[in-house]
């Protein structure tokens, strides 16, 4: 650009000076060394033909041309001096000399650099360099017109031996100098007209000539000479529009180049996964301490306060006081330890309590809470009995209730419901209603009963017992009582509570365990009692058979020893109350215990149950029956096991039976069943192990033997096996169905009745042709579609081509834009980025948005910074802090932000 500018300026300058002078200057320069006129003439004669001739000539001559000129230069130092002298001397009178100066003007071009030359090279090919020996293109234009002049000057030159310029100048001068006289003597303040007109411009030569005498300027002179030699003619200026265009073009190129420096940065920013705009924000002090340290008291009050605070005396006093306080604060180590342990204990207690409360609170069972409440009430009751204070309170409350009841008679069939029921008649009511009425009445009686009467009821049972037991003689009576009580215990144990906290399964389970232990003990005690009672009575055990007859059960193996009976008895006993799995353990345990006692226990055992049976109530009968019966049926182990197989479930248990474990006992049916079936099952027992298998085998064998003895081939077997079902046809049908569903058959064309049927003629025609055609087309289409199906050629395959609409939602129709392949796209969402499947350290980087900015922070436009494209983004960062922050992100940070 600057170059072009300069060039432009130059060109305008040059435009002022004319082409002719230009040429003349060249000539002058060459003719400067005063050659013999004949030689000069020769040269001149040659030159006019030269101008347009050749570039290469000049180019080749350039090198030695310079050298050649060095020599003449040396000569005409002296001669030029003379010329200058002449010009000085004749300044006013000899215009030629002025011209001479003027024509040296292109020296201004000496500051033209090589660029210019290069530019001109491509600009204008016809603009040729010369060694000054030839005319420029411009000059050539004038040539024809000046042909005559040229000859004339040559002639003059020949005559006078003076340079041709002298004459030319003279001629020109004459034209210009048409009689405007000089008013003032020429000086620097009053330049000659030549100078003003531009003809007489001062050239570098003018300035340099005085230096020619001085030594040490040879180099400068040489350079100038060179420049002059290499200078060339100036081109004609372009039109301004074109000029501007060229300029703009150049400017655009430069500006493009200038702007391209951003390319790298832009590229990098675009590729960066994240742009960070929230950096370098200085929020100033962040801590209270930092802010406080900056505090300076400004107001009067603040100053006073500050003075007080920083006062030495006050500070000292404060310090002293503080130390004294500290001294008073001493606590012994033991005390502290004590305190701590106390606190720890309290805390742990609290903690446990809390835990317990939490656990209980967590139990969601409604029944549990209801029962808990009931229990709580019960405990309250007991408390009442224990604590007189509470009892008093309770009595008061009860009294009030009673009073209320007496006054209102609320439970005495007073409400509407009860009245209605009574009017209808109690007998016509159902059980529940009657019970409810009864309950109500009872409640009424309870409430209205006096306090002392409650006490009576509690002790009544004892009295009864005493009464009952009064008849018998003491020893047996006591024993009988003991037996009864134990029996009661056992019997009680069998009753599982139907309601209450204890009815819950987990409680029940625990209870049963306890119960088992208790029963065991009770049984032992019972035995003892019975023994001793027998001794007392001295009666013979003949009642055994009696008992059996009463119970109406047959006994097997009664003749066998009764040693093992105890074990069996106990075992069976357990079967009633408890679950199966627990039995085995307990059974074996009990067995051991019983065998130890078996010596003591004799046949007479059978007698006792009779007694017991007589004593017990009716509803407890069954339990005791079982008990008795087991006592009475002390069959050997073998029978026992057989009885197992007899049960209904033997087939299912068959496999387990083979293992021969005690588990079988768990499958034992109730005693009655066992006894009923015993006879029949005894036979089965023998082959029980292999029974089922044998049957199976038997069946197969028989069927096989009936068909043929030859082994049929595999295929035949299969065909026979699947003889009934037509799989292939079914498959075909299925396939056709699917085909029809996916490519439905076109509907048959139907005319709307009456539509378009004005006459019978139309009717005869039938369906219009286009309809038929369409139908046909639809058929064809369908057939083609069926043919095109993937499973068209595959006989045994159905490939559904139905689109799964639900799955379709999860597919894109085409590959989305930034992705280049299906794999890449799928890869892009392969790994989940959520917090559930990634550690917290990775989530930030995975989820970082494209642009991270902070609201309220002004983002400034980008500023240029050098980028090394091969450097990694992290390395570029200056301070460590920032690089650390960005380590995970790999993002680009934009520094141009300000808070």
């Amino acid at each position: 650009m600057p170059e072009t500018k300069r060039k432009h300026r130059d060109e305008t300058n040059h435009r002022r000076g004319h082409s002719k002078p230009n040429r003349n200057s060249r000539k002058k320069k060459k003719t400067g060394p005063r050659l013999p006129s004949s030689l000069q003439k020769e040269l001149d004669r040659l030159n006019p033909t030269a101008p347009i001739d050749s570039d290469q000539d000049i180019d080749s001559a350039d090198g030695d041309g310079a050298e050649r000129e060095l020599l003449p230069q040396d000569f005409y130092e002296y001669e030029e001096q003379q010329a200058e002298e002449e010009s000085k001397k004749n300044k006013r009178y000899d215009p030629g000399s002025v011209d001479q100066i003027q024509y040296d003007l292109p020296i201004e071009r000496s500051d033209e650099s090589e660029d210019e030359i290069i530019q001109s090279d491509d600009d204008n090919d016809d603009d040729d360099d010369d060694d000054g020996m030839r005319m420029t293109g411009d000059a050539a234009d004038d040539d024809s017109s000046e042909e005559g002049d040229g000859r004339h000057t040559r002639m003059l030159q020949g005559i006078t031996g003076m340079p041709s310029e002298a004459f030319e100048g003279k001629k020109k001068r004459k034209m210009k100098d048409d009689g405007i006289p000089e008013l003032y003597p020429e000086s620097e303040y009053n330049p000659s007209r030549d100078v003003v007109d531009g003809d007489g411009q001062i050239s570098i030569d003018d300035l340099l000539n005085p230096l020619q005498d001085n030594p040490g300027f040879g180099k400068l002179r040489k350079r100038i000479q060179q420049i002059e030699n290499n200078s060339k003619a100036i081109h004609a200026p372009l039109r301004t529009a074109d000029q501007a265009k060229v300029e703009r073009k150049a400017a655009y190129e430069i500006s493009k180049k200038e702007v391209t420096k951003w390319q790298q940065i832009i590229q990098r920013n675009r590729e960066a996964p994240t742009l960070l705009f929230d950096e370098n924000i200085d929020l100033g002090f962040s801590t209270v301490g930092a802010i406080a340290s900056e505090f300076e008291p400004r107001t009067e009050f603040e100053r006073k306060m500050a003075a007080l605070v920083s006062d030495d005396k006050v500070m000292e006093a404060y310090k002293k006081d503080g130390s004294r306080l500290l001294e008073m604060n001493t606590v012994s180590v033991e005390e502290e330890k004590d305190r701590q342990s106390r606190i720890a204990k309290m805390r742990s207690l609290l903690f446990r309590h809390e835990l317990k409360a939490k656990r209980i609170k967590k139990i969601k069972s409604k029944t549990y809470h209801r029962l808990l409440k009931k229990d709580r009430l019960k405990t309250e009751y007991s408390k009442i009995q224990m604590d007189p204070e509470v009892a008093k309170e309770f009595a008061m409350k009860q009294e009030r209730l009673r009073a209320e009841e007496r006054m209102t008679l609320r439970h005495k069939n007073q409400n509407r419901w009860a009245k209605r029921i009574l009017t209808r008649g109690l007998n016509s009511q159902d059980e529940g209603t009657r019970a409810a009425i009864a309950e109500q009445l009872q409640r009424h009686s309870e409430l209205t009963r006096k306090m002392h009467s409650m006490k009576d009821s509690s002790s009544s049972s004892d009295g009864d017992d005493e009464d009952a037991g009064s008849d018998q003689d003491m020893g047996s009576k006591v024993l009988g009582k003991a037996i009864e009580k134990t029996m009661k215990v056992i019997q009680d144990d069998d009753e599982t509570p139907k309601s209450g906290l204890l009815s819950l399964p987990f409680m029940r389970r625990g209870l049963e365990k306890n119960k088992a232990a208790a029963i065991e003990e009770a049984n032992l005690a019972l035995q003892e009692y019975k023994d001793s009672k027998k001794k007392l009575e001295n009666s013979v055990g003949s009642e055994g058979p009696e008992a059996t007859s009463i119970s109406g059960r047959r006994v097997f193996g009664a003749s066998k020893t009764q040693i093992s009976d105890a074990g069996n008895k106990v075992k069976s006993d357990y079967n009633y109350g408890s679950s199966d799995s627990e039995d085995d353990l307990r059974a074996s345990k009990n067995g051991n215990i019983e065998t130890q006692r078996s010596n003591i226990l004799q046949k007479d055992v059978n007698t006792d149950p009779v007694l017991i049976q007589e004593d017990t109530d009716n509803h407890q009968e069954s339990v005791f029956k079982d008990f008795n019966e087991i006592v009475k049926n002390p069959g050997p182990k073998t029978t026992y096991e057989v009885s197992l197989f007899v049960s209904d479930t033997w087939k299912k248990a068959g496999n387990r039976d083979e293992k021969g474990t005690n588990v079988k006992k768990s499958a034992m049916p109730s005693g009655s069943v066992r006894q009923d079936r015993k006879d029949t099952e005894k036979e089965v027992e023998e082959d029980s192990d292999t029974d089922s298998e044998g049957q199976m085998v038997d069946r197969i064998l028989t069927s096989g033997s009936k068909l043929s003895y030859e082994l049929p081939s595999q295929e035949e077997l299969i065909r026979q096996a699947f003889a009934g079902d037509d799989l292939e046809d079914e498959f075909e049908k299925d396939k056709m169905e699917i085909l029809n569903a996916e490519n439905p058959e076109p509907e048959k064309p139907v005319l709307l009745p009456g539509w378009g049927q004005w006459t019978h003629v139309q009717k005869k025609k039938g369906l219009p042709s286009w309809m038929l055609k369409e139908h046909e087309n639809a058929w064809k289409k369908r057939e083609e579609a069926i043919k095109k199906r993937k499973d068209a050629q595959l006989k045994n395959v159905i490939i559904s081509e139905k689109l799964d609409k639900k799955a379709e939602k999860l597919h894109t129709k085409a590959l989305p834009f930034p992705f280049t392949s299906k794999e890449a796209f799928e890869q892009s969402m392969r790994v989940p980025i959520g917090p559930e499947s990634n550690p917290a350290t990775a989530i930030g980087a995975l989820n970082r948005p494209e642009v991270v900015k902070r609201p309220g922070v002004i983002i400034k436009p980008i500023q240029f910074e050098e980028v090394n494209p091969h450097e990694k983004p992290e390395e570029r960062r200056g301070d460590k802090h920032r690089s650390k922050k960005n380590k995970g992100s790999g993002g680009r940070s934009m520094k141009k932000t300000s808070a």
Partner: protein
Amino acid sequence: MKVKVISRSVDDFTRERSQDLQRVFRNYDPSLRTQEKAVEYVRALNAVKLDKIFARPFIGAMDGHIDGVSCMAKNPTQLKWIFSGAMDGDIRLWDIASRRTVCQFPGHQGAVRGLTVSTDGRMLVSCGTDCTVRLWNTSADNIMELSNSTKNSVEPASVHVGKNAYLAVDHQWDSELFATAGAQLDIWNHNRSEPINSFQWGSDSVISVRFNPGEPNLLATSANDRSIMLYDLRMVSPVRKMIMMTKTNSIAWNPMEPINFTAANEDGNCYSYDARKLDEAKCVHRDHVSAVMDIDYSPTGREFVTGSYDRTVRFFYYNSGHSREIYHTKRMQRVFCVKFSGDGSYVISGSDDTNLRLWKAKASEQLGVVLPRERKKHEYHAAIKKRYMHLPEVKRIERHRHLPKPIYKAATLMRAMSDARKRKEERRKAHSAPGSVTTQPLRRRRIIKEVE
């Protein structure tokens, strides 16, 4: 027997404060979570729906002008201040936070057509059809003084009178130069009463001028002769002119990519150009159904906002062909000017109905202080949305916008027209000798020529 026991050091698990979170261990084995992808898809779907639910972009309107708002300028140093000029010659300074006028700058006799603020925020330059350029002192102290004083009006620091009406003004980044556009492009200095440079290329008036913020010596103008021109102040010369089929109403340089600018065109499209290659647009941003009147880039350089004569404001990504968002209200008329706020999270639009409107740049963004957990959640949602954005269901919900009827109809009509044109061209191509008819891509079609 060997018993495996988890051994953990106490130090790792002792919390310093009771508020600290307990360390939690998770097994990140993908085989344990086989449905994670499905879960994330559903989450993305929900996130998109949530976005729709929370899309409440309109924050408030600022009324006070008594004529259409023609131009706005944001203060580069102050987030909450924005200047607006109206067709009646009124210039106001608004406090965005309270949505009130802070002060007024009376003086223009005709419409104010251009406003700009120097980079340091101390000088407001306004120009208008009354052939004057006015400079106002708007340093923070001065403004505070003005807002507190009772008279509430200001005298301009200087007034320069020109020969022709001025249509636009813009300030150079970080310098004292500003450029006015009118009959010619003038470059001014704060301290001189005459333009230091004037450029005229072509005879039509210049209607918009914008300095390149990243490369402050470059500026682009658009003129009534449908041309876009580039100038380089270092070379003190225009550098390139490009003529399109329709006139360009406004130009915005990408502040993060100093070689790219986007031109808001009269034909309803925006064209993103590389300043080095003007023979082809980098991207054509379509969607507006009427002339785009103004355009402004987000300071992040990733998106820009356009205001259109069709009464809507749209957001585009710098490289996407269609808008990502459209804002409209029943009362908003032709939008003449739009500006992004300095932090890139708000947009202000000035329209014919004399109001300035404040919008969120992201319709469903949560305003106010965002807790770290919330921020993480938002980021996660954004990430999965981006991940599943191509799936049809997510895409459909995300792209669905409710449009005013006229715009919807106009869009349909324009689509039909362009389809018809395309069809016609295809047919012409099919019925002529192969190679004799060539179709130009849209990026090139609207460009007539590039003038050197």
